[in-house]
Structures are given as C-alpha cells and as structure tokens.
C-alpha cells in the first residue's frame, strides 16, 4: 500500500536527514567533510542507551545524550580540527583523513568500553500502535517523526530567526567577511559542532529505538549514506539536506516495496545521488540559491 510506504519512507528519510544535518552544518562553516559525524551517531546511541538504563526516562536519555555528544563535538572541534585547519597551507584531505581516523577510533573505543555485543534499548512506549484503515504506524515512529519535526523546527528557528543564526549563515556564505563584520567565528564553529553532533546523536538513538539494537559499528552505513545526502543536498545547505534525506528515504522504501530487492537497499542512495548529479551537478539546492 502506497500510503504505508510513504510514511515509512518519510520516517526513514527524516532520520537520514538528522544524521546528515550535522555534517552539513559542519561543512557549511569549516569546509570539512566530517565523517566522524557518524561516530557521534554511535556515541549518541550508546550514551542514550546508558542514560536510559540508568533513569528509565526516554526523553531525558534523548536530550542528555544530545547535549553530551554536542559538547564532545565542541571539544573535538577545538582540540582536533581547529589546530589542524589553522595551520598554513593545509590541504583539504588532511582534516578529511583525520575525521576518518577519528571515526574508526571511536568505533573501536566503543567496542572496548561497551563490548562488541548488540545492546537492546528495550524501550516500551506507553502509546499503542496507531491504526488508520490499513495504515499502521508504530509508536516508535510517531515518537521519531514528532521529535524530528521538533528538532528541525528548532534548527530552522535558530538559523533564521536569531542573531546567532544570522551570523552562522553569514559565516557559511563568506567567513572572512563575517569576521570583519564582527562575528567571532569560533562561536559559529562551536555552534556547528554542538548542533551537528547533537543531531547525529539523536538520529543514533532513534535508529537504536527503531531496531532495538545498538552496536559499535552502527555508524558505518550512515557514514557513507550521509555523504550521499549532503552532496545531494548541495553541500552545506540545511534545507537541501532535509530534502535529500527525504528523497533517499522515500526512494529506498519505494524501490524495496515495488521493484523488489534486486539490489541491496543501501545502494539506492548512491544511485539516486548519481542520477541527480547527472542532471543537476550542484545538488538539489545549490549553495548560491539557498
């Protein structure tokens, strides 16, 4: 049934968008392709699981894990990326390789600390399954869709309605001139990381909740799918990222439902990427028109 598939696709897509949003925010300001954003996804899931097992409070687990992961992001930015990119004549591949290293390291650290086994979140939501005709919506989905909408609304508000957000957008447009106008670029960078890693963390917990499993390598697939999404969205463009996330989520679901499993699900993201880039090389929304 089409409606069911659409709901599935939108839900998966919004989780993808959340995962990729961090990388988009970071690329927008620092021009770093931060693969380690997918590490924040896994770290966030583990923190969420840990806080949930301690407190049995899902909301607390979500927000505390987001904040903690966001703060880790600020530390990573300040003590790892910033010293690297502020050296003269650094080629862009250096921070990229750094982020891959950081990502691999985090996966191994999680394995060492929490063990290689799959952990289950074991959340029981009090609301039941929502049944509208043939449309079946699990309580986890409702939770995810509402939370994603809430997070994106907050992001939209910060970026478009606050002075901090204006400074962020100006810095993304031309960081040198933004500084000359009085923007402390360190604040914009920190904002990118706190929001970026926080969002990735929330996506990690959502996926953990959805499949009831958390494991050290859970960031692997998001790490490359996230790349497809941010490129598709026009690199550094928040609105484009949401659209690209939804497009990929819907494509995956619809292809799986109607064409069948002729290819692995995770390939579809890249097929969509290639097709869109062939038609429009600057991505869905190019930066200039954002």
């Amino acid at each position, binding site marked *: 049934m089409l409606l069911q598939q659409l709901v599935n696709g939108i839900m998966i897509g919004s989780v993808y968008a959340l995962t990729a949003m961090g990388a988009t925010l970071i690329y927008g300001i620092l021009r770093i392709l931060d693969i380690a954003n997918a590490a924040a996804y896994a770290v966030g899931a583990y923190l969420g699981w840990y806080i949930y097992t301690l407190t049995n409070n899902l909301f607390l687990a979500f927000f505390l894990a987001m904040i903690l992961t966001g703060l880790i992001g600020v530390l990573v930015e300040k003590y790892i990326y910033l010293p690297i990119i502020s050296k*003269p004549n650094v080629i862009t591949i250096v921070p990229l390789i750094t982020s891959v290293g950081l990502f691999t390291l985090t996966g191994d650290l999680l394995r060492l600390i929490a063990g290689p086994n799959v952990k289950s979140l074991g959340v029981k939501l009090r609301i039941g399954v929502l049944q509208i005709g043939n449309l079946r919506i699990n309580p986890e989905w409702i939770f995810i869709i509402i939370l994603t909408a809430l997070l994106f609304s907050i992001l939209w508000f910060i970026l478009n309605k606050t002075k901090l957000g204006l400074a962020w*957008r*100006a810095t993304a447009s031309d960081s040198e001139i933004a500084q*000359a*106008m*009085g923007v402390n670029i360190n604040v914009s960078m920190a904002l990118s990381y706190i929001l970026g890693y926080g969002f990735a963390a929330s996506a990690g917990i959502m996926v953990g909740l959805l499949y009831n499993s958390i494991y050290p390598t859970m960031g692997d697939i998001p790490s490359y799918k996230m790349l497809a999404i941010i490129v598709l969205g026009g690199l550094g463009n928040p609105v484009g990222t949401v659209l690209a996330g939804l497009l990929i989520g819907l494509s995956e679901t619809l292809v799986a439902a109607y064409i069948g499993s002729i290819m692995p699900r995770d390939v579809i993201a890249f097929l969509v990427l290639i097709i869109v880039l062939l038609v429009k090389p600057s991505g869905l929304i190019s930066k*200039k*028109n954002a």
Partner: protein
Amino acid sequence: MLEIKDVEIYYGQMKVIKEVSISVHEGELVTVIGANGAGKTTLIKAIMGLKEIKSGSIIFKEKDITNDPAWKRAEMGIGYIPEGRRVFNNLTVEENLKMGCYKIKDKDTIKKNINKAYELFPILDERKNQLANTMSGGEQQMLAIGRALVLEPRLLLIDEISMGLMPILVNTSFRIIKELNDAGITVLIVEQNANKVLKIADRGYVLETGNIVMENTAKNLMENDTVKKAYLGS
C-alpha cells in the same frame, strides 16, 4: 587615529609587505596607490585583522590592536569594504545590513542606522527582501558600502572600490566616499585607479612590491613626474 609601524607580512616564505609604516589622522582621507600585486589588499586585510603580520604593530586610537582578531576590531569601529564587494550572497539585502551592525547591541540604533543606509541608497530599501546575489554589480556595491556604514565606523577601510565596476559607477562610488569623509568618517583606501582616488584624497602613499616608495599630499603626488608616468598614464 591609525598608526601602522614597520609592518611585515609573509605568504609562506615570500615577504609581500616590507617594513611598511603608514599613519592616518582623524578626519583624513588617505590612499595607498599601487599596481596589481603591490600588496595593497594584503595590507588592508592586515589592518582589518584578516591577515596575520610577522612583525611590526598596528595602533588604533592609541591602542595596540596588533593581536586583536578582526571581530574585535569591528567592535572598535573599523568598517571594511572589501575588494569585489563580497556581499553575503545567500542573505537578503536587509540581512546583509543587519550583519553590518552585528556589533551594535541597541535595537533602536540598528534600526536607525539601517534606515539611514536606505535613505542613502533607496534601491536597497526597494530590494530589502531580495537575496543579495540577485542584484546587479552596482547594487551590490551600494550594499557593500551600506553594510560598512551601518556600523557607524570611526575608520573606514576600502579595498579597490573601482574594481570591476562600470565607469559611471566608479565615479559615483568615489563621490560617495568623499561625502562620507566630509561627514566626518576617517578613510583609508587602497586603490589602483590613482587618477580618481588622488582627486578626492588628502594624502597618499605609493606602494611598490611591498615597499612604500613615496608619501606626500595627494596634490603633490598628482604633480609628481614618477607618479604621473607610472600611475596616471600621462
């Protein structure tokens, strides 16, 4: 008001600014003229805090600002009109102006200053909700000037305002700068178009491959044979 002492700047191993000293007094309109690649943009960026200097010092209003970041210098009242306009493309005209007064806290002052910019350039008012990159080069130039003015700068740094503009707009731009200076804003402008800028400036420096080779009143520079030959095309 502005005192640059023995400033040296490097790009990698290459020294592009060599022991340059420049002073600008309150109310003056001072220019640094020089050919392409003489180091003009580097110099003005260093004064704004966008380019690190190797040695020397920059004093603004009796305060050593050599190690202050650009955003602090903006806070002190240094305005900047960059080469090639560089408006924030994906921001609206009004948002660009808001960025110009980023360091102003008082909301009424912000509103007042933005309205003043609209009075100076009515076209900006008409297009305030338009994205900056949808405007023509001339309109973007007005926006770049307006964006620097809303800060109510004590000192205005201008980098090659004539670059890439139609001749008629070049004249307008220089006229506006002169008017701003008459209204009390101190101006330091680096410029390749010596002909035009010396007509409005009080004093000038000649920058050649990173060295100040001459310093005089604008009037004397215009009459100097070397300057005539090298920069005025006569």
